[in-house]
């Protein structure tokens, strides 16, 4: 019985040849794989981007010292910096020089030297150790400079992180739904094939062909179609991903450039077409065997 399953041409003509390209199936598989690959890429990209960004920001704080009195400002700034340097939970304390501040503000202020007319805040960057108590630190800073503000970036990072996570989830969910839709289409296509070739199958059946052999005929026919469709869809998706990657690189923003696919992401993407073909073959086999179970 085994040789019945061998992929030899003469054994697979038991069902009439049909031009697969004339049916919609390869195109549908291509479309599904295309969309699912993009979905998974977006999911992985956003997920890893958010993760990387979160890692960068975790622990980064900026202390902003606002003091209208220009004489008090440097004193408060130095006192706060000294306090931070001596604090056991803080490291990497760095006072931003006035020139640096001016450069940061230049796009908004147009390079005019407004340092005298406009009260400029002083900025101190620092890094908190893991598990540091931000509230305690804030109290100590306020004691030295009542108008100081600590920005731990979480405030603006949190909503972006949530949004990115939700988008990633939606993208992955879409990929799962596409897989379900593909399976449904394979079921319908296989059922149509079963009824189209009803007589041939009945004769094979009466001659003692096993259910698995009949299923193998369908799988063999489907394998080519699915492979062609999946490869096409995957290559198109990869082209799109590379293109989008370039565009993102040009933007240069932290989140989007961090969103670019990591290496393991590419490996995971490869699972989409492989999985689609496996899913199609398995679904087709199950459909045939279920249908035949109703015959004697």
């Amino acid at each position, binding site marked *: *019985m085994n*040789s*019945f399953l061998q992929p030899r041409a003469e054994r697979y003509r*038991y069902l009439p040849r049909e031009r697969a390209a004339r049916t919609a199936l390869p195109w549908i598989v291509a479309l599904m794989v295309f969309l699912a690959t993009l979905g998974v890429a977006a999911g992985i990209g956003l997920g890893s981007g958010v993760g990387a960004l979160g890692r960068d920001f975790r622990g980064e704080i900026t202390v902003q010292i606002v003091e209208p009195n220009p004489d008090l400002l440097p004193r408060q700034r130095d006192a706060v910096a000294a306090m931070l340097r001596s604090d056991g939970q803080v490291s990497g304390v760095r006072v931003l020089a006035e020139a640096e501040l001016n450069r940061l503000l230049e796009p908004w202020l147009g390079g005019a030297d407004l340092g005298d007319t406009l009260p400029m805040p002083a900025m101190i960057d620092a890094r908190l150790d893991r598990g540091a108590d931000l509230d305690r630190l804030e109290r100590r800073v306020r004691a030295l400079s009542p108008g100081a503000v600590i920005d731990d970036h979480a405030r603006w990072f949190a909503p972006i992180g949530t949004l990115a996570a939700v988008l990633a989830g939606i993208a992955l969910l879409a990929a799962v739904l596409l897989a379900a839709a593909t399976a449904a289409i394979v079921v319908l296509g296989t059922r149509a094939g079963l009824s189209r070739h009803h007589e041939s199958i*009945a004769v*094979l059946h*009466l001659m*003692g062909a096993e259910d698995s052999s009949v299923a193998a005929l369908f799988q063999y026919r489907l394998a080519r179609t699915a492979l062609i469709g999946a490869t096409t869809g995957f290559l198109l998706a990869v082209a799109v991903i590379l293109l989008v990657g370039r565009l993102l690189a040009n933007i240069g923003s932290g989140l989007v450039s961090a969103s670019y696919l990591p290496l393991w992401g590419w490996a995971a993407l490869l699972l989409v077409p492989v999985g689609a073909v496996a899913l199609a073959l398995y679904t087709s086999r199950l459909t045939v065997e279920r249908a035949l179970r109703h015959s*004697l």
Partner: protein
Amino acid sequence: MEPLARFENVGLRYGTDAEVLRDISFRLDPGAFLFLVGPSGAGKTSLLKLLYLDRRPTRGRFTLFGENIGAAPRTKLPALRRRIGVVFQDFRLLDHLSAFDNVALPLRIGGVAEAEVAAHVEELLDWVGLARRRDARPRTLSGGEQQRLAIARAVIARPDLLLADEPTGNVDPEMAGRLLHLFHELNRLGTTVVVATHALQLLPKVPAATIMKLDRGEIADPVGALRNPPAPPETRAAGAAR
């Protein structure tokens, strides 16, 4: 001797219709040659359908190759089917396959090596006079040629049980004689043969054969009572019924 097939009060109905076979009881011994006769609609094809495992009996007990068919799991049936060769009344050749591939089908399903398949098929095609039509599609063959092709497909794998439903309906008397001779030869080599036919003139050609007559779904004669075929007038009547 363990019978090859045994029917005990077997009944068969299609769907919810009335029974087309009723109280069928007989045994078929290995090596037997059985003619199944009877008017059109008597149930000959239906009885063969039970024998080639297309249907399970709806009543009674039917045993084939020692397996109780009414209760056997369907996974056991393909192996039994591979021991059976069938000439269907309407041939059921696969139209998209060549004559060669149609005949090769049972061997390939049985997993026979391709080199062996070719030799066997060529030889048999030659024997039934279709060697030159080996690449022809069944649709392009004459009725008689299709019939011979169907017979070749049924016997190619040397089945233990050969079932032929009206196998000589479309061939001339000479070819009919040749085909029956083929069945007879296979029978002598050990194949159990059941032939359903209206052609009563064939019956004397197999002197050792048992003859069973079906009428409206029932066995009309005790097995063997028709050993001596009926007189010519009934032959004409049976011929006219077709």
